[in-house]
C-alpha cells in the first residue's frame, strides 16, 4: 500500500517536474549562459559581463527600460482604478443573473485573440477611423486626426488587454466579504468613503495586489500592443529584445536584455509587496 502511494505521488509529480525542468529551468539556464558570452571572433566566445555592460552604457537602452517600467506601472494603476468599481458592482451590487451576465461581458472580449482585439482599437483610432470621422462629422475638428502611434494609444491598449486579469481576482476577494460587515460599517456611523477605506479596501488588498502583479507583468512583457498601437519606434523594452534576437541576430545581448527584464519585474513586484505589507503566499493563496 505504501509503495503504491509512493508510486502515485511520483506519477503525479512527474508532469510538473517535466514542465518546470524542460520549459522553465533549462531554457533559462541556457539563456543565462548565452547572456554571459562575448563574441571575440568568428565562432569564438569568451565568458564575460560585456553584454550587461553594453546595456548600462547605452542611454537609449536604459531609457527604454525605465520608460517601459513607468508606463507599465501607470497602466496597472489605471486598470485598478477602472476595474475596482466594476468589480465592486459585479461582486456586491449586482444580483443573480445580472451578476453572471456582467462577469461574462468582461470575459467575452478575451474569446478573441489579442491580435484581433488590438486591430479593433486600430480601426477606432486611426486617421480614417471611427473616432476621427465622428469628430469631423460633429464639426469639432476640420481634418482627420491621427490617434494611433502615441503613448496614450499604448496606454489604452494595455489597460484594455489587462482588464480581465484585474477584475477576476478583485471580484473573487470582494465576493468573500460578508455583506453584513459592510452593513456593520454603515450601522456604526461610517459613510461610503470611510467604509470603502477602512473595510472594503483592506479586505480586498490581497486581490488588489495579486491583480496588480499580474497586470504589471503582462504589460511589461507585452510586445503586440505597444508595437501595433504605438508604432515600431514606441520604445518598449520587449521590442529591444525582439530586435536583438531577430533583426540583429545578437542573441547574447538579447539574452542579457531578457534577464534585465526578469530582474526589473522581480524587483518591482517585491517592492510592491513590501510597500503594501502583503506576502506572496497571502496574495496567491
Amino acid at each position, binding site marked *: 500500500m505504501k509503495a503504491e502511494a509512493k508510486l502515485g505521488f511520483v506519477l503525479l509529480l512527474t508532469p510538473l517536474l517535466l514542465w518546470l525542468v524542460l520549459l522553465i529551468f533549462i531554457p533559462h539556464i541556457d539563456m543565462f549562459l548565452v547572456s554571459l558570452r562575448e563574441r571575440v571572433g568568428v565562432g569564438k566566445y569568451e565568458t564575460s559581463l560585456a553584454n550587461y555592460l553594453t546595456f548600462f552604457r547605452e542611454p537609449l537602452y536604459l531609457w527604454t527600460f525605465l520608460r517601459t517600467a513607468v508606463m507599465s506601472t501607470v497602466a496597472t494603476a489605471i486598470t485598478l482604478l477602472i476595474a475596482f468599481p466594476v468589480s465592486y458592482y459585479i461582486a456586491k451590487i449586482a444580483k443573480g443573473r445580472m451578476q453572471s451576465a456582467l462577469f461574462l461581458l468582461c470575459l467575452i472580449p478575451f474569446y478573441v485573440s489579442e491580435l484581433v482585439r488590438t486591430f479593433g482599437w486600430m480601426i477606432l483610432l486611426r486617421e480614417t477611423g471611427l473616432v476621427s470621422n465622428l469628430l469631423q462629422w460633429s464639426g469639432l475638428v476640420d481634418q482627420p486626426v491621427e490617434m494611433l502611434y502615441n503613448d496614450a494609444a499604448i496606454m489604452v491598449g494595455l489597460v484594455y488587454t489587462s482588464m480581465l486579469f484585474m477584475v477576476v481576482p478583485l471580484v473573487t476577494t470582494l465576493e468573500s466579504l*460578508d455583506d*453584513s*460587515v459592510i*452593513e*456593520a*460599517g*454603515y*450601522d*456604526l*456611523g*461610517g*459613510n461610503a468613503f*470611510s467604509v470603502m477605506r*477602512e*473595510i472594503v479596501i*483592506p*479586505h480586498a488588498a490581497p486581490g488588489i495586489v495579486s491583480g496588480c502583479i499580474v497586470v504589471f507583468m503582462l504589460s511589461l512583457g507585452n510586445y503586440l500592443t505597444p508595437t501595433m498601437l504605438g508604432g515600431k519606434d514606441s520604445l518598449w523594452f520587449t521590442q529591444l529584445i525582439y530586435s536583438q534576437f531577430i533583426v540583429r541576430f545578437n542573441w547574447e545581448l538579447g539574452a542579457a536584455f531578457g534577464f534585465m527584464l526578469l530582474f526589473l519585474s522581480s524587483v518591482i513586484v517585491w517592492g510592491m509587496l513590501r510597500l503594501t505589507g502583503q506576502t506572496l503566499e497571502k496574495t496567491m493563496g
Partner: protein
Amino acid sequence: MTPDLECVDLIRRFGETTAVDNVSFEVPAGSFFSILGPSGCGKTTIMRMIAGFLDPTSGDIRIKGKSMAGVAPNKRPVNMVFQHLALFPMMNIADNIGYGLRRKGMARAEIARKVDEALERIGLPGIGKRKVDELSGGQKQRVAIARCMVMEPDVLLLDEPLGALDLKLREHMKIELKALQAAFDTTFVYITHDQSEALVMSDQIAVMNKGVFEQVGTARELYYRPESAFVAGFVGDSNRWRGRIERIEGGEMEMRTESGLSMRGALHGRQLSAGDTADIFVRPEAIRVARSETELASFDNRISGTVSSLLFNGAASRVLVQGGDGGEQIEVTLPQSGEYATLSKGDPVHIGWSGEQGNCFPAGAA
C-alpha cells in the same frame, strides 16, 4: 415618558408578499424586548427596517419620539449586533470597538480610554491588540456587543446573535446578555427563533407569525395564557387535541376529542360555545404521572394507560402514554425526583391534569 422605540402600523411588502403586515409596538426605555417567531415570519425584516437598511412600505418608526423616516443607517441612534457578528476581520479588537467612535471624530486618547473601559466592562481587559480570529465564539460575541455599546445607542438591535454558538455557551451567554443589558442600561431589541432565549432574557416578548404579531406579553403570559393557537403551539411544547365542545358551564367546558376522549378545560375568557370545533393544548409538564389513581383525585382529567415509549433526556425526560380507551399518545414530563427512574415500557400508569391548565381555541386558527 416616551418609549425608546415605537413602531406604528409598520408594513413592508416585497413584490406580492407582505413580509410585515401592520405591526405596531412600543418598547419602554431600558427594557429587553424580544421578537420570537419561526424563520421567514418577518422578524428580520422588522429589525432591518429599524436599523435603516430597509424602508417600510408604510408606517413609521420612532426612536425616542423622533421619526426615523428618511434617516440613513449611519445617522440613526441604533446599533445592531449581526447574526454572524460581522466583526471587522481586518482590524484588531481595539480598532473594532473604536471604529464607531473614530467615525464620530472623537480624539484618539478619548477613544483609547473608552475602548479600555468597554473591554473592562465585558470582562476582557487587555485583549485590544489581538486579532478577531484569535478570539473564541463567546468572546467575539461580547466584543460585538461592546462595539455597539461604546456608541451609547438608544436602542441596541440583536439579530439572533447566539445562533452560531454551541449549546453550553449559548446557555451561558443568555445569562451574560441579560447581565450586560442591566449593566449598560440600554434598550435591547432581540430577535430569535429560539423560544428559550426569548423566555429567559426578555421583559416583553412579541410572538410573530406570517408578518403579524400574534401576542405581545411577558414570558409568563405567553407560556400560561397564550392568546392564539399559534402561540400555544409555538411557545413550549403541547399535547394537542381537536374535538367538539359538548357543554359550557360558566368558565368551564367539556369537549370530546376526535379520538373519543372526554376532556374538561377552562375557557379563560375565550369566545367558544357548545357545538364548536376546537383545539385544546395541554403542556406535557402540566400533566402529573402516578402509579395509583388515588394520587390524582384532585384533577378533573384522568386517564389510565400504559407507557408506550420512554424519551430519556435528563431533566427534560418524557414518557408517551397510551390511554386505555384508545386515542393518541400523550406526552408527559417525567419528574426526576427518583420515583420513576425504574419506569419502563409497558408499565401501567395513571395521568391527570387540571382543566385550568389547558388552553382551548376555536379550530382552524392555526
